[in-house]
């Protein structure tokens, strides 16, 4: 089976997309490197304050016309975008593999989930309807109209470069707002392609803008008086201490989806083969670089035979994972995004060893399928005897590392889950409905899985999160996103 053809040949010079024009940046240029091959595939600008200001100005000027475009007409732009995304599905997916490293199945899954958000946004004529009460007093009626707010900033992370901005963009646009997207400068190519398709779909100039860069662009968004709200996905320190704080100071709406340390609780009555298959995706899918990845495997009960058999099977399947370039269809796990991230993960592995956890599968020197530099590759790693107080047991590693812990019973397991400051996506594997309900009722986590390893909500549900994993009130996706991107205008009327 051949390696799939790369859609990007040579190095793509990336431009900003402002007011319907592709504009060169005056900022410094950074290289975008394919983490599997080590080849430079793009040059991304770190845009200036003037450039983010120009994008916000264009978005502001486009607002009145876009608001007057009817919801039905706005949804038709999204329908056209959806058609184009289906047409270029494979190209967009392969770009993600090239810029990020994930496998082609994972990239296609990301593309599909992005499209699903566009599809939900297409339903805006219904989703955006208000409501009406006749005769709240004699001859007086009251009603509510959801109205757009203005310009929104969307700040994307590196781990799902294509999909995550689409948790916000379709809803912001469909409700009549305009947007400025700042993709991660590490992975700007799929967002550039998305903007090209948005242009082809015919969005009017200024409605959809993309400004590449780093802190200057983020700060420019946070400080800009004409940006009314921000959606952000990234680390907890940035989300909590920078984005959420600054939005509070400047009176902006905010959704800050942050870090995670997810627990996967294994009950002794689980369906073992199905559970183990699910754990592979949970812990090692996307090379562990997702906020819904399993991080701690918490095995419940004092049955040592079950524990040993279960862990042996986990290690057996884990050790067979094929690591390599994601465009090779046989590959099950790609590299991590860059060498600094790899070094950080290795530091965590070393800290686990130092703190006394037992390393039972070491991924530091992986066997790579194909002839690729090992710069960004890691194999799956499994630790046993991890305690919740160890660094590898409590902090987000964001890599393919499984930390195995034990709990005497379900109550203790829930206590351990809840003691962790994060609350993004915990799951239980069991055949007992009683235990499953008890778990979901008591666990402090925004997304909860019952026999599901990756608790990724569909586009028509909010992508939830609690505690240190989320700062804000409403979430991205679905009806909550529609609420976030609209103000409730309430009218009370009487006619004399």
């Amino acid at each position, binding site marked *: 089976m051949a390696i799939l053809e790369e859609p990007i040949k040579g190095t793509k010079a990336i431009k900003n997309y402002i007011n319907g024009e592709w504009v060169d940046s005056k900022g410094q240029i950074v290289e975008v490197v394919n983490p599997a091959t080590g080849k430079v595939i793009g040059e991304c600008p770190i845009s200036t304050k003037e450039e983010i200001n120009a994008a916000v100005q264009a978005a502001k000027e486009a607002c009145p016309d876009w608001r007057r475009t009817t919801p039905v007409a706005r949804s038709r732009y999204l329908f056209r975008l959806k058609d184009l995304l289906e047409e270029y599905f494979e190209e967009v997916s392969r770009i993600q593999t090239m810029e990020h490293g994930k496998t082609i199945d994972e990239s296609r899954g990301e593309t599909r989930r992005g499209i699903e958000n566009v599809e939900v946004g297409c339903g805006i004529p219904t989703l955006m309807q208000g409501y009406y009460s006749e005769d709240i007093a004699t001859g007086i009626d009251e009603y509510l109209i959801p109205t757009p707010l203005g310009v929104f900033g969307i700040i994307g992370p590196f781990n799902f470069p294509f999909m995550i901005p689409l948790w916000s963009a379709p809803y912001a646009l469909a409700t009549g707002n305009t947007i400025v997207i700042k993709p991660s400068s590490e992975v700007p190519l799929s967002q550039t392609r998305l903007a090209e398709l948005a242009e082809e779909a015919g969005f009017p100039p200024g409605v959809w803008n993309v400004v590449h860069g780093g802190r200057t662009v983020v700060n420019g968004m946070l400080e800009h008086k004409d940006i009314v709200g921000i959606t952000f996905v990234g680390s907890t320190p940035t989300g909590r201490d920078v984005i959420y704080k600054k939005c509070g100071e400047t009176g902006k709406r905010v959704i800050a989806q942050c870090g995670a340390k997810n627990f996967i609780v294994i009950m002794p009555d689980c369906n073992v083969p199905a559970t183990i298959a699910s754990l*592979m995706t949970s812990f090692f899918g996307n090379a562990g670089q997702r906020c819904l990845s399993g991080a701690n495997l918490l095995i419940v009960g004092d049955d040592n035979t079950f524990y040993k058999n279960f862990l042996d099977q986990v290690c057996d399947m884990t050790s067979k994972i094929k690591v390599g370039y994601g465009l090779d269809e046989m590959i099950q796990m790609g590299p991590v995004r860059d060498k600094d991230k790899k070094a950080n993960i290795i530091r965590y592995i070393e800290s686990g060893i130092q703190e006394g956890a037992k390393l039972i599968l070491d991924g530091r020197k992986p066997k790579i399928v194909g002839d690729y530099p090992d710069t960004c590759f890691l194999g799956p790693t499994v630790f046993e005897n991890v305690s919740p107080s160890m660094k590898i047991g409590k902090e987000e590693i964001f890599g393919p590392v499984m930390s195995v812990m034990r709990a005497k019973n379900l109550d203790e397991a829930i206590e351990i889950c809840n003691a962790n400051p994060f609350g993004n996506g915990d799951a239980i594997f069991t055949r007992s409905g009683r235990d499953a309900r008890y778990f979901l009722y008591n666990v402090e986590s925004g997304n909860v899985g019952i026999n599901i390893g990756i608790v990724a909500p569909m586009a028509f549900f909010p992508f939830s999160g609690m505690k240190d994993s989320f700062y804000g009130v409403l979430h991205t996706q679905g009806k909550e996103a529609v609420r976030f991107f609209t103000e409730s205008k309430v009218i009370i009327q009487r006619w004399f």
Partner: protein
Amino acid sequence: MGISTCSGAISLSRELENESAKFYEELSKRFEKDKDLFLTFAKENGKYITQIERAYYGVITDAIEGCFAFDLNPEDYQFKAVPSKDANYSDVLKDALMIEERILNFYKVAAEQSKHLMADIPRSFTLVAKKRNERIPTLKALLDQAK
């Protein structure tokens, strides 16, 4: 190397359909008598590819076990797509039956292994398996006549 990924399994199904279509196209050139039937088979193969890819692209998501869904050995399903030059009609019909049985077996195994994925993928494998199964009595009848 064995196939574990969805992408790999879909590519294998595409390869099997394309190769067997080539085989039937060759038969249609060499055996005029049943030309229409062989060309119909070749055309159907193209539809099966579309059907399976549509199911896959429609439901693929990063949240299911896409990279850990299968345990397939491609060698179990390989066949020679070009009938030998001196093969008579009986020989090529036997080859056709062998090909159909191998591909049928692939779809059955793939459907079984992917049954925990979203329903559309195993369903499309099962539907294609059912369609392919219908070819076997037709080919057997032709073989009986040719003997």
